[in-house]
């Protein structure tokens, strides 16, 4: 028997898996609250004043360095989380060639991550 470690290249899956795990944990701890606040309470003005969604307030948040970090972490990690799960499910469904599926999932997450960084820089400090 040949040694098991030979002819056994290391997978690069850990990179995607850790991003998936980080996104899964952040969304598990704060996801319901975020959706409730930005998607339901603020738009209907329930317990949260109108000014919460004002342009100036949102801009101030996105210009604050901590606000920037929060936005980047939430948007990028949430995309990486969904990308991993969608990729594996589409692979289970044999929905297409692996490369196409990877571009449509990990590729989108990578593009959104870069775009988010670009937008946060463009918005200024």
């Amino acid at each position, binding site marked *: 028997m040949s040694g098991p470690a030979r002819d056994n290249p290391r997978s690069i899956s850990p990179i995607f898996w850790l991003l998936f795990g980080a996104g899964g944990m952040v969304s598990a701890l704060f996801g319901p*609250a975020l959706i409730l606040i*930005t998607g*339901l309470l603020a738009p209907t003005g329930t317990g949260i004043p109108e000014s919460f969604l004002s342009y100036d307030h949102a801009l101030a948040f996105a210009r604050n360095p901590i606000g920037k970090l929060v936005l980047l972490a939430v948007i990028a990690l949430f995309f990486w*989380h969904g990308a991993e799960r969608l990729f594996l499910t589409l692979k289970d469904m044999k929905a297409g060639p692996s490369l196409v599926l990877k571009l449509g999932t990990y590729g989108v997450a990578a593009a959104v991550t870069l775009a988010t960084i670009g*937008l*946060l820089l463009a918005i200024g400090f």
Partner: protein
Amino acid sequence: MNESRPYRRPQPGNWWAKPPYRAYTARELSGVAVAIYGGVLFAGLVSLARGPENWAGYVGFLKSPTSLALHVLLLAAVVYHVITWFQTLPKTMPKLIVNGEAVPAKKITGLATLLAGATSLALVLVVLGVTR
């Protein structure tokens, strides 16, 4: 005479849609809701960068019945994600040994789910308090 001629039965292509695997597929797809919500936030960031008029359009969308319905659905899917996430959590950890005995997985799941409820609740209360 003795040579083996094994017969291979392929796995059905739709195994993921059939029990007991259906729940797993639903769990995975609930994670996609997390990314869709990420997309909603990303769209907001794009509108913000484009200026006040674009932002007003985005807020208009957030207030529309379509968006409210979407967020209710997303909330339901993400709550399902939270529950299943912590059901899977003990599988990814080494056995927790307390007083010489392994802590049951159900206990870890229960405590972690409670903690997640608390962190989400805390975030909502903080935002409600700060913006008052």
